[in-house]
């Protein structure tokens, strides 16, 4: 056997220029304590109210997307952990169960080979996977992440997954039993807005909405179409609404706000759409712009991400102000100037609510939601391409 003792010695002995141990050790008679290994951090069973999740679409490797768990109150260590969100994934939080869910797509050879679509169930304290439900047919809809491609219904016991092949359908999954219940064809309609006790609404290509109720087997029990709820050519609604209880507040490309009551079996458009308002300085005009352009706070106020460069085609370019709107009074109550071109906004449920703004640069900025005052920036420390913020 060759002697390898010198090898070990070099690893253990101090290297190169070392300060004299004798002198400094006088001040610190005891060395630093040995540290316990292995050690893996755990998150609190109930996440603090300053925590949000931020979806990193990860353009440089879309197949390796992830969701960051972020403490917006901690500028020193804002990133609390990452949850895998592979290949145009969707992500859901079930706070009451302490579970997180992802819908993802995998290939046996990373980019090629056998395809598997699956829901993974993650423990929200350990961020470890605790179960999987394989989705059949290789039909899961892959899009830049929209929240309403994966939603809960039936009191959170079931999940609804959007499919697109390009034939459109919705898969109904029993999360507790970890099995697929049913698939509902949905030609010409997109997105899933949970409706009533067990059902959902989608928006359709002709401007109508379509509401479906589900029976105990996850099959469609009834359905109803409501025509002309939006004018897609001239006043299209962004697909992601702000939820206030069971009311979904949508905003249009031009800044018109339209509510839908989703409490019953059929979605009901609320009478009286209204404008988020206008302002000087538009070039040519102020319009909503970004990826997640409208959100709500716990008190029911709406926050709309606005760009002064609004015209046809600018609706995803991001915004530089947030306009706060009271949907009951149908009036704007505040304008908040942002630090940079922002793609997504959300408001925490803290006792002092904070507006969380994700810039295109990756920087996450925090503002006082009531006053609009800038509080802190977390820098670009949690995600490469933050495009969605969820408040648990």
């Amino acid at each position, binding site marked *: 056997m060759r002697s390898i003792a010198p090898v070990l010695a070099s690893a253990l002995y101090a290297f190169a220029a070392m300060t004299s141990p004798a002198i400094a050790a006088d001040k610190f008679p005891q060395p630093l304590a040995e540290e316990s290994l292995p050690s893996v951090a755990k998150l609190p069973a109930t996440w603090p109210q300053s925590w949000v999740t931020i979806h990193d*679409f990860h*353009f*440089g*490797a*879309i*197949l390796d997307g992830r969701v960051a768990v972020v403490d917006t109150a901690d500028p020193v260590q804002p990133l609390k952990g990452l949850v895998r969100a592979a*290949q*145009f994934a969707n992500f859901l939080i079930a706070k009451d169960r302490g579970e997180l869910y992802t819908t993802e*797509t995998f*290939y046996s050879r*990373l*980019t*090629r*080979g056998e*395809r598997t679509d699956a829901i993974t169930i993650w423990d929200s304290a350990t961020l470890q996977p605790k179960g999987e439900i394989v989705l059949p047919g290789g039909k899961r809809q*892959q*899009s*830049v992440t*929209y929240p309403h491609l994966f939603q809960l219904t039936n009191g959170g016991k079931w999940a609804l997954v959007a499919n*697109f*092949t*390009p*034939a459109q359908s919705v898969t109904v999954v029993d999360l507790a039993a970890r099995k697929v219940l049913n698939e*509902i*064809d*949905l*030609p*010409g*309609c*997109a*997105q899933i807005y949970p409706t009533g006790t067990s059902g959902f609404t989608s*928006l*359709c*290509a002709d401007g109508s909405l*379509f509401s479906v109720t589900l029976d105990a087997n996850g*099959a*469609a*029990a009834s*359905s109803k179409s409501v025509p002309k709820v939006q004018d*897609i*050519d001239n006043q*299209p*609604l*962004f*697909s992601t609404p702000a939820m206030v209880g069971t009311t979904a507040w949508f905003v249009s490309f031009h800044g018109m706000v339209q509510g839908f009551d989703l409490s019953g079996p059929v979605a009901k458009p609320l009478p009286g759409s209204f404008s988020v308002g206008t302002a000087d300085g538009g070039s040519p005009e102020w319009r909503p712009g970004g*990826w997640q352009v409208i959100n709500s706070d716990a008190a029911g106020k709406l926050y709309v991400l606005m760009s002064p*460069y609004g015209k046809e*085609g*600018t*609706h*995803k*370019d*991001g915004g530089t102000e947030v306009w706060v709107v009271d949907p009951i009074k149908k009036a704007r109550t505040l304008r908040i100037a942002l630090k940079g*071109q922002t*793609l997504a906004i959300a408001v925490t449920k803290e006792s002092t609510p904070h507006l969380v703004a994700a*810039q*295109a*640069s990756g920087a996450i900025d925090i503002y006082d939601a009531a006053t609009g005052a800038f509080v802190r920036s977390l820098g670009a420390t949690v995600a490469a*391409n933050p*495009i969605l913020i969820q408040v648990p």
Partner: protein
Amino acid sequence: MARFDKITENLARGIARGTSRRSLLAWLGAGMTGAASIPLLPVARAATPPAPEAPHGPHGAGAARPAIISGLEQDPGDRASCDYWRYCAIDGFLCSCCGGSVNTCPPGTEMSPITWIGTCTNPADGRAYVISYNDCCGVSSCGQCLCNRNEGDRPQVRPQSNNDYNWCLGSESSVYNCSVAAVIGVALPAAK
């Protein structure tokens, strides 16, 4: 229930299976005559609209690089720039920067058989062209020349007008590499 409209769906599936450039144009023509065709030809994924100071202006980011030009006076502009006229509604990495060209996928990829159709105006001849934004699939994110333009883009309820879908759909793998922007015809005159 659960069968809202099988006719429409089957038609869409037939399109997905059988579309070639020729049949696509035939189908587009047919579409004008009635409601029998549901144009389920959307395109793919949105890019982060990058910061305004990015080299390529408000619609894209990336390294500064020399222009890729056609050499044709009738097809002006830089095919490595998000501002090139054909990219009026593109969303993703430009294949021109990834080993392909404005209408060719890079080696190692597969071109998506069905696509989203946009309409862009050529500044040289003033014509509005129908542009097919095909995705190239089976290789991971190219990472070069990320662009996102949305002229005419509409929400996902209207798939053929929405560029947020991953259109690596009819291909063997749904992994997205880059997008091309091919001229497949002249648009009909704008309805007044």
